């Protein structure tokens, strides 16, 4: 049987209002791959958290050109999602801190925790001043749908 290999590439403006639309795309693709309903929800959460970090923290302001590059790779029953920004980057060796109770932008530092919990594998690469790339991987555990030929 031939292995399916497909790539989706979307450049999303770095605006929070588009994350929900991208989430629908991810949900549709992962559901079609054969992930269970629970796994599809897990994938949507992990993907959204990666996008949240990009739209909230990568760029100091949105002037029109700032984007989040999203790549969705399907290799057989393996899904890989890449979320990449070209913003400020961060020090990956510093753990995220919980913000103060009176912080007007409450951020619990849960994004990385959700990504790690919901996916089989998560990798983060970041360079200060150049941007951040998050890679999220998950494999269909019990394939039941027939693979379409490439």
């Amino acid at each position: 049987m031939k292995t399916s290999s497909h790539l989706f590439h979307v450049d999303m403006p770095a605006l929070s209002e588009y994350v929900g639309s991208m989430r629908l795309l991810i949900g549709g693709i992962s559901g079609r791959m054969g992930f269970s309903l629970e796994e599809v929800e897990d994938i949507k959460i992990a993907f959204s958290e990666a996008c949240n970090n990009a739209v909230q923290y990568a760029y100091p302001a949105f002037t029109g050109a700032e984007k989040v590059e999203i790549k969705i790779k399907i290799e057989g029953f393996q899904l890989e999602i890449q979320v990449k920004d070209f913003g400020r980057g961060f020090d990956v060796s510093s753990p995220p801190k919980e913000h103060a109770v009176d912080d007007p932008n409450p951020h619990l530092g849960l994004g990385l925790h959700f990504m790690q919990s919901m996916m089989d594998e998560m990798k983060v690469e970041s360079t200060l001043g150049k941007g951040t790339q998050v890679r999220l991987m998950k494999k269909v555990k019990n394939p039941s749908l027939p693979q379409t030929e490439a």
Partner: protein
Amino acid sequence: MDLEIKTRKEKDIPVLTLSGEIDVYSYPKLSKALAGYLDQSVDIVINMESVKYIDSTGLGVLANTAAKIAQKKVHLHIFCTKTNIKKIFEVSGLLQKNLKIFDSEATAIENSKKS
């Protein structure tokens, strides 16, 4: 899908009924709705039965609110039976802190009080 918020009072307890998605785009709306109750010394009930999605930004608003009102010895009580939403709360670890989930709105309201 947008976030809709309806508010009412049951026995002087504010009940916020949420529907839709609470995410990076809509969480400020929830934050603004809850801000009005931070100065009141009363438990708050949040009905999340019609919430389709919540992420860390939405959890952040709920956790932040719960922490602030805990200073007045009052609490946030959440009504939710949806497995996918409850899972997010469980994975976050927030149920070990100031947030409580009930499986009926009536029970959440009965367990609420004015301090």
